[in-house]
């Protein structure tokens, strides 16, 4: 049939278009950011130049990108998996906190284990913690029909306050005036891949998780089932899939991944739990996932971009005094442009294909 074949041809064109979009968005956002920086009285060229130099000029500073990259990858995967399974988990932040809490317990109170046992154990408890927190939202949805967007976000606030409380009244060493837990045992630290940098085992684990999630979602029957439920739960039901079980699996995995974000922060950079543990990776992860269109490979790119922007924003402020809100604006513009362009390209493609109905 003529029209279908031509739509395929267009699809190829459209794919190229699709791939260019993020770069175009980045470029436009940097341009608008440059204009803003200019109006703040700073030479934008100097600011960007400085940013690039300070990020890429020094391996130790460059490695800071991975401080953010690792938890962002986990959080973005958490959102993406849930989204693919039709569950809108916007509570990654709370699950991250709860995973960090359980991981802290396993890291602080279990001592004397060799690293090759202690590290997986702490990761596992982190996973379970995050999964548990998400499971609550899932149960509320499945049993009571409560909307998960509301559930997960509210549970996020609850988790943050709860961790605040637990740290201060239970985890804080008695003689400390600062509200923070003890450090986790050295045996639960991620070994550094390059000494004196932030490039540690977490980087490998996060990339490995991307691969696992990809194979899980697109190559395994479970992932197939989850995607089917997410795309069209009616059809999945008619095809004989167990919707409840599938949704629950998604919820556990999604929450667990967010919990791993918390555990990886704990084991890789922070080593102790504090009330303001995460600077919002759970929310930023949603952005990274949406920007990557929930594709695991894309998440590597977007998480890296977000991490880069975070480090770059700091560098620009340190070096030439670019106010932080301008850097946030740049990040915001990138997100708006990319999500907006997705809408546009969707329209573009439906015009192509639906034109002759």
């Amino acid at each position: 049939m003529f029209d279908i074949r031509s739509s395929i041809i267009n699809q190829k064109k459209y794919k190229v278009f699709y791939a260019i979009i993020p770069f175009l968005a980045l470029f436009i956002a940097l341009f608008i950011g440059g204009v803003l920086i200019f109006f703040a009285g700073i030479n934008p060229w100097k600011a960007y130049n400085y940013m690039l130099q300070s990020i890429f000029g020094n391996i130790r500073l460059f490695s800071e990108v991975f401080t953010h990259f690792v938890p962002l990858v986990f959080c973005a995967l958490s959102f993406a998996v849930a989204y693919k399974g039709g569950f809108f988990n916007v509570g990654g932040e709370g699950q991250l906190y709860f995973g960090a809490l359980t991981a802290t317990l396993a890291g602080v109170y279990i001592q004397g284990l060799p690293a090759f046992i202690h590290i997986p154990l702490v990761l596992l408890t982190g996973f379970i913690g995050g999964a548990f927190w998400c499971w609550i939202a899932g149960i509320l949805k499945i049993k009571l029909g409560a909307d998960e967007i509301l559930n997960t976000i509210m549970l996020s606030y609850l988790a943050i306050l709860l961790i605040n409380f637990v740290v201060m009244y239970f985890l804080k060493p008695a003689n400390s005036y600062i509200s923070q837990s003890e450090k986790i045992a050295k045996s639960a630290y991620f070994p550094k891949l390059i000494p004196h940098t932030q490039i540690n085992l977490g980087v490998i684990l996060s990339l490995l998780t991307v691969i696992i999630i990809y194979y899980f979602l697109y190559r395994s029957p479970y992932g197939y089932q989850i995607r089917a439920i997410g795309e069209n739960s009616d059809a999945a039901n008619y095809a004989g899939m167990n919707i409840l079980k599938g949704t629950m699996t998604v919820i556990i995995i999604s929450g667990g991944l967010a919990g791993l974000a918390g555990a990886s922060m704990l084991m890789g950079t922070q080593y102790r739990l504090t009330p303001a543990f995460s600077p919002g990776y759970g929310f930023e992860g949603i952005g990274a996932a949406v920007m990557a269109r929930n594709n695991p490979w894309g998440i590597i790119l977007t998480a890296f971009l977000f991490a880069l922007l975070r480090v770059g924003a700091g560098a620009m402020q340190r070096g030439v005094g670019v106010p932080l809100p301008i850097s946030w604006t740049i990040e915001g513009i990138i997100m708006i442009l990319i999500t907006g362009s997705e809408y546009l390209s969707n329209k573009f493609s439906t015009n192509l294909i639906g034109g002759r109905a």
Partner: protein
Amino acid sequence: MKKSKVFLRVFVLAFAILMIFSTLAMTAPLKIAIILPHAITSEGWTKSGFDGLMKAKEDFDIETSYQENVSEGELKGALRGYIAEGYDLIIVHEMGYNDPTLEVAEESPDTMFAITYGFKAADNVAVTSGTNWQANSLAGAVAGLMTKSNKVGFIISNDSPVAHNFLNAGFIYGAKRINPKAEVITTFVGSWSDVVKGKELAKAMIKQGVDVIYSQCGVVNRAVIEVCEEAGIWAIGAVEDMSYVAPQTVIANALAPTEYLVYGVIKEMVEGTLKGGRVVKGIKDGAEEITFNPLLKDKLPENGEEKIMKLRQEIVDGDITLEQMQEELNKQNIKF
């Protein structure tokens, strides 16, 4: 032959450049940076620290930089960034970042670090702190002095050990000392910037009969004072002189300008006297103070100012310490 000539030239050139740079470095001004936990626009704690840096920049020949809104996860990166850029003094303006700062400081012993309101110091880490209780106890005393309902309110940002053992203990002690019948209601906002919640808490206190409120909570302070103005009750300004917000409402100000501490650290650095170790500065050192709103002095009860000043003198003379206060409150079975 030719090769060695080229080599020589390069060598001489390199040496020359090195010389120029090293002399430049010798004459170059000190590079001083501050790392702030929140945005510099957030009034109170963060802005005050930033102002200290700006003031120092005016007074001394220094090169300055700041990074705001640095979360705990970003702290080490920011510190390392400054270290890599050759900063001489890096001030961390958040007591909660004490331990991670020490860890990074250990990596680079040639750089000087300072932590405001911290607890743990090191050879290259100077901790400079206010007492956290002296101005607060005087604020409590003023509250005890002014209350007619014998109910006074204290609004604190985050629930923390410092909040209980220093801030709240000092405030309650001061209030009870002047007015044994005074009852203190303390609440926590849980944030430095949640203005709406701060207002709600203040309103709730007023409903409970509170007629003097002291707020120690960044941007929220201003909002609380406005609520007090509407309700026609007394307010006490915190950190800086806030009389201008509501001249007929702010009866006194408990000053504890972190600006002063930041400025002090930089001054010592410039003068070459800054050393690692922990220094606590109080009223005696001019780091804290209680001041009355001159417009409202006639509203003070008889001998009121004298009573407060007497307590102040006891504190300055060291007749009262934090431990004594806590002990006293424990004896009276008062939780803080």
